[in-house]
């Protein structure tokens, strides 16, 4: 018994303390170093933060280059799939276009009327600054749904800015480096945004699931989201303006979990718009 314990200690000591011929550091030394790095990073130690920013800048650029072949394969696969579905998609688009054309006229009228009414009730109109960014890396592992974009603090990007794909909200800025930033997508488990579900007008919180959809949380009115309910930002947090389309409630899962299918396909993003909303003076 005593001998086997000795063997265990010798084997462990040899594994963690012994340096191989070309090794500069022992395993134990590096383990301690990574723990110290982790603790100091967690405590926002200034020197570690500078090191982190430098490493991030290098890694994001390198990752963009290294991911080139994989992106090529991915894009080729998507192009082939699109070609195969071309006929069905065309038929669907034709029918959608007819409906949309009729809705557009009505929409224009409603926007103008809304602006006029806002001025009457002395509400503010939101103005926005937009920056277009290219996606450097779209790491969407099951544990983290985020993208890295080629705009950073030198392009006046700030934490919390809204990130949109066309007219649809896709996430917000959670990390800003000098020339790059990280966007936390709405589908990430850690993403939570205040939303309003129309036409019922229910206020709620949209949380990510780590999958491709979101889930409505803290909504007491169970039957209010029946049918094709659309989820918009409510503007409660002050970061996003109200009324940005996010997704629609999946009709099948009304009775159990209210999942939200996002309008934007996060796996096919190439360029995004970073938007900062601010109040405009009423005229």
């Amino acid at each position, binding site marked *: 018994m005593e001998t086997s314990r000795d*063997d*265990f200690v*010798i*084997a*462990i000591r*040899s*594994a*963690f303390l012994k340096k*191989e*011929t*070309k*090794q*500069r*550091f*022992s*395993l134990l030394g*590096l*383990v301690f*170093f*990574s*723990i110290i*790095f*982790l603790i100091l*990073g*967690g405590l926002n130690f200034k020197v*570690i933060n500078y090191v*982190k920013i430098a*490493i*991030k800048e290098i*890694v*994001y650029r*390198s*990752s963009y280059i*290294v*991911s080139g072949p*994989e992106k090529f394969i*991915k894009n080729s*696969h*998507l192009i082939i799939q699109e070609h195969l579905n071309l006929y069905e998609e065309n038929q669907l688009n034709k029918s959608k276009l007819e409906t949309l054309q009729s809705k557009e006229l009505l929409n224009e009228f409603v926007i103008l009327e809304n602006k006029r009414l806002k001025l009457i009730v002395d509400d503010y109109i939101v103005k926005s600054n937009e920056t277009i960014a290219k996606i450097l*890396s*779209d*790491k*969407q*592992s*099951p*544990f*983290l749904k*985020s993208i890295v974009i080629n705009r950073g603090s030198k392009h006046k990007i700030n934490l919390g800015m809204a990130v949109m794909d066309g007219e649809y909200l896709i996430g917000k800025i959670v*990390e800003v480096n000098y020339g790059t930033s*990280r966007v936390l997508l709405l589908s990430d*488990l*850690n993403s939570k945004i205040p939303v309003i579900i129309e036409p019922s007008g229910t206020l709620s919180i949209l949380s990510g699931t*780590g*999958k*491709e959809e979101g889930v409505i949380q803290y909504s007491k009115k169970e039957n209010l989201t029946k049918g094709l309910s659309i989820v918009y930002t409510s503007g409660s947090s002050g970061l996003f303006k109200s009324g940005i389309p996010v997704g629609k409630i999946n009709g099948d899962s009304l009775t159990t979990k209210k999942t939200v299918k996002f309008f934007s396909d996060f*796996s096919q993003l190439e360029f995004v718009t970073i938007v900062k909303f601010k109040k405009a003076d009423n005229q």
Partner: protein
Amino acid sequence: MSILQNRNFLIKITSLLPLILLYISVLNTFDFNYLGLKYFSFNFSYILIFYYNLKREKSLGYTAIFIAGLFNDVIVGTPMGISSLIYLLLCGSAVYLRNITLRPNLMKDWIFFLVTILILNSLSFTILTLIFDFEINYIDKLVNAICTFLFYFIFSYLFNLVEVFLLGSSDAR
């Protein structure tokens, strides 16, 4: 002469192959989401680090593994240092197994690898959720660990095959 030069080149490439593969695997964003395989994910870096520390002790330096861990944290978005810690502990367990093994056996290595990745995944899960307030779906983490475990068997054969093909030597410690 040229045969000898070719041979030297092959030896150099083979010795650098694990390092190149490790950095490619941490720097690229490869996943199978676009193929519709939602729950399919495995950690290639774990397999690579464990295999090469167990079988070819000099092919991956600890410092290189530490830096690869930092790179992985940047790409994945986890607090910097956590992947390095996990990778180095994985190295430690592989070296420990190498020290206590007299007769190498793939099945035993495979089982030891499973126990190691389960412990290390639990450790990273605990640190991320309890200390850094990350929300992680443990089912996904478990599926990832199981797939990594299953793929170890295939990749250990592949790595061995590549070395035999390039160098003409069989698996010997």
